[in-house]
């Protein structure tokens, strides 16, 4: 499609992002959804 090369093309996904309809992971809630929390040890020698 030589006529598209160098021409200004708008993105297909922008409209949903601009109107607040993007589905980022935090926006999705499934039934019986579970959550992971990372607990990090504070030092190498620590026993927590």
């Amino acid at each position, binding site marked *: 499609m030589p006529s598209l090369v160098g021409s200004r093309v708008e993105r297909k996904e922008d409209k949903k*992002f601009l109107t607040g309809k993007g589905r980022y992971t935090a*926006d999705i809630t499934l039934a019986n959804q579970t959550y992971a929390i990372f607990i990090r040890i504070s030092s190498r020698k620590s026993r927590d």
Partner: protein
Amino acid sequence: MKEVTLQINGKKVTKQVEDHTILSTFLRDGLNLTGTHIGCDTSQCGACVVHVDGKSVKSCTVLAADIDGSKVTTIEGLATNGKMHPMQEAFKKLHGLQCGYCTPGMVMSAVDLLNQKKNPSDQEIRDWLEGNICRCTGYQNIVAAVKEASTKM
């Protein structure tokens, strides 16, 4: 618990909320208006910006109970009758977004700027948007989009 009545994007909403309920939680979890995003926990990033009584605020730093009776406009309420706001059109036309995560807050913040000042300079736009962080675009096209929108508003 407190009963709070807000006008959200033109619609009256009354709900019981805990005193500590944050506006962004009220919108995202209570009303499923997930266009308003959380990008930090320090009130720095601006992904949560909405309008309360016409002025931009960081919804992560507002208690729903504190603004009982107010009008709230979120990114979902900016377009009217399916037609995008000039700011949204400008962002689309000038590639003012990549991942889109900062975009709702950026757009809402920029709309308030243009409501308060016509034809801001590049520097005025950058100063106004200091509270809105973008990791993708480098801000160049965001500033261009705001300038474009200012010719249409």
